[in-house]
């Protein structure tokens, strides 16, 4: 045969791509560190980096030095953790939804989970209940939406990507109508806090251990299925012919992605953009294999949201912006930059453009 591939050449290419992956993940981890530093140092009170380190490491320093320690330990650290967790959950969920629906435009909210959560949260605001109820109401609303879509789309043999997508979009539209109804019948005072919630806001959020346990659990579960996920991105039948239990995988994708989204929305409201754009940024950077895409999305999503939140606190300090406003403002140019520098075709569907 004229053109033969000899053993080393394929492996050589792979080892080159391994070096690239190491570089990529090095960069992602650096971004996470930068994100944390920014989150802990920025705000209406400036605290230099070396001091933040002291305040965090020396627990006894907290008693000694005043308000600075309390700001870092009780306000900024929990908020930074919440930002990281929310970003990681949204980006992971976005990756999973895009495979589940085999649609590059899918995001964590496309199946109406955020709508359900919003109706719950806004209901609490409208009724003037204590804000502690918002968490429960939002999570209940999200779960209700998950079960509703699941019950409707999973009936009969169903479960095709199109059927699921259509059901989710319609349920989502239903929640949207309810949200608009609540907004239009509420007083000016409450509408403001409702809008803040809808845009996504981290000012009341506290990252907790179980958020990270959830992220890790989903990550481990899905990493074990990373190769089957690669196959499923090529189509359900293709995956089934390669020995993937498609039904089970779709179910676990749906449940895990929903749980992540519900937790993220409950934690910080419906922050847009992260779940849609982060997976694509990574794919455009060459991480299309789910073994890299899943952990990469968690790291990039987390660091991205920490940076956006740091800006949200400082741009018009001492006032704070809802972080959802900034995710789009930062994300749009960053995404466009990567899109136009990338050699990968933008059209995933393979439609060729006219010259």
């Amino acid at each position: 045969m004229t053109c033969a591939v000899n053993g080393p050449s394929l492996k050589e290419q792979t080892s080159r791509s391994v070096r690239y992956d190491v570089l990529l993940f090095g960069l992602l981890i650096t971004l996470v560190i930068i994100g944390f530093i920014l989150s802990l140092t920025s705000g209406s009170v400036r605290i230099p980096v070396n001091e933040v380190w002291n305040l965090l490491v020396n627990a006894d320093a907290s008693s000694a030095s005043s308000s600075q320690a309390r700001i870092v330990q009780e306000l900024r650290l929990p908020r930074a953790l919440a930002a990281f967790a929310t970003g990681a959950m949204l980006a992971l969920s976005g990756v999973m939804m895009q495979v589940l629906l085999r649609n590059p435009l899918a995001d964590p909210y496309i199946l109406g989970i955020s709508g359900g959560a919003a109706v719950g949260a806004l209901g609490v605001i409208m009724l003037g209940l204590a804000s502690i109820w918002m968490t429960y109401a939002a999570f209940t609303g999200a779960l209700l939406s998950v079960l509703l879509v699941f019950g409707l789309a999973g009936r009969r043999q169903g479960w095709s990507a199109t059927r699921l997508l259509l059901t989710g979009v319609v349920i989502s539209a239903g929640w949207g109508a309810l949200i608009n109804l609540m907004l239009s019948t509420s007083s000016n005072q409450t509408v403001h806090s409702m809008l803040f919630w809808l845009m996504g806001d981290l000012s009341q959020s506290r990252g907790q251990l179980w958020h990270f346990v959830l992220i890790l659990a989903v990550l481990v579960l899905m990493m074990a299925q990373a190769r089957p996920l690669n196959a499923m991105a090529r189509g359900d039948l293709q995956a089934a012919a390669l020995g993937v239990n498609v039904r089970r995988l779709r179910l676990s994708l749906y449940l895990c992605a929903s749980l992540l989204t519900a937790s993220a929305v409950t934690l910080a409201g419906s922050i847009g953009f992260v779940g849609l754009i982060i997976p694509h940024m990574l794919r455009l950077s060459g991480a299309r294999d789910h073994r890299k895409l899943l952990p990469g999305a968690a790291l990039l999503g987390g660091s991205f949201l920490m940076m956006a939140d740091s800006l949200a606190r400082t741009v018009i300090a001492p006032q704070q912006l809802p972080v959802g406003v900034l995710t789009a403002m930062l994300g749009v140019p960053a995404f466009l930059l990567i899109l136009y520098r990338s050699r990968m075709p933008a059209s995933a569907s393979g439609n060729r453009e006219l010259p």
Partner: protein
Amino acid sequence: MNPGMAAALFQIQQVSVTMAGKPLCNDLDLTLRAGERLAILGPNGSGKTSLLHTLMGLQKPRTGQISINAQNIAALSAAALARQVGLLFQSAQDEMPATVLETILLGRLPHQHSWSAMSELDWKQVERAVTHMELSEFLNRDVCELSGGERQRVAIAALLAQSPQVFLLDEPSNHLDISFQIKAMQVLSKIVLSEQRALIMATHDINLAARFCDRVLLLMGNGRYCEGQTRAVLTESLLSAAFCVDIQKISHQGHDFFFPAGFSPHAQRP
């Protein structure tokens, strides 16, 4: 040993396939031995693809059972089945971007564990597939950018990498230029014959079937079928009946060629 006496590799017993209530094939009995190549011919909608999907376990037969190496495929896990039977789909859908290499590597999926790295065997099979389909220049291209024929070569390479004992091919010559049609069939034939595997291909190309297959299953389109040695089934009368067109045969250098006759464009002009 006489090749006719080789062990039964793939057994189809009393299998009936229906689509939307319409019978496609009734009570199909067929045994494929190692080293045999079978063509499925038939008009549009006669059930070629449905039958292949049934053989791959993607849909259940209405009746009957299918076994590979004397094991009922219904009792096998999807992964265990995919290690032994592989299917080339009629068309690949590429909604999500992936490179050629990534797509071919997926063929090794049934042979891999969740956390395992690529083994030496995995690499060997992938390299062989890449060489056979002459794709070494394409490995880092996105599959969405490829032409139809190039995409088909990637799909065939992925199937070669999967390296099943029974190859199921749904229109393998789709989009391929004539040289790759021959090349793909030669490669597959060689593997089937030298490694004691088997091949079933659905095709519209009667001449490709005549040239590369030992046996033919002709679906008549109404649930009935004819099955037998290629020369016995590929006759003018049977083909004409199945396709409802007058099909004639000419022989050239010991090969039979089939073409639709009575079909002169000039004759139809007023």
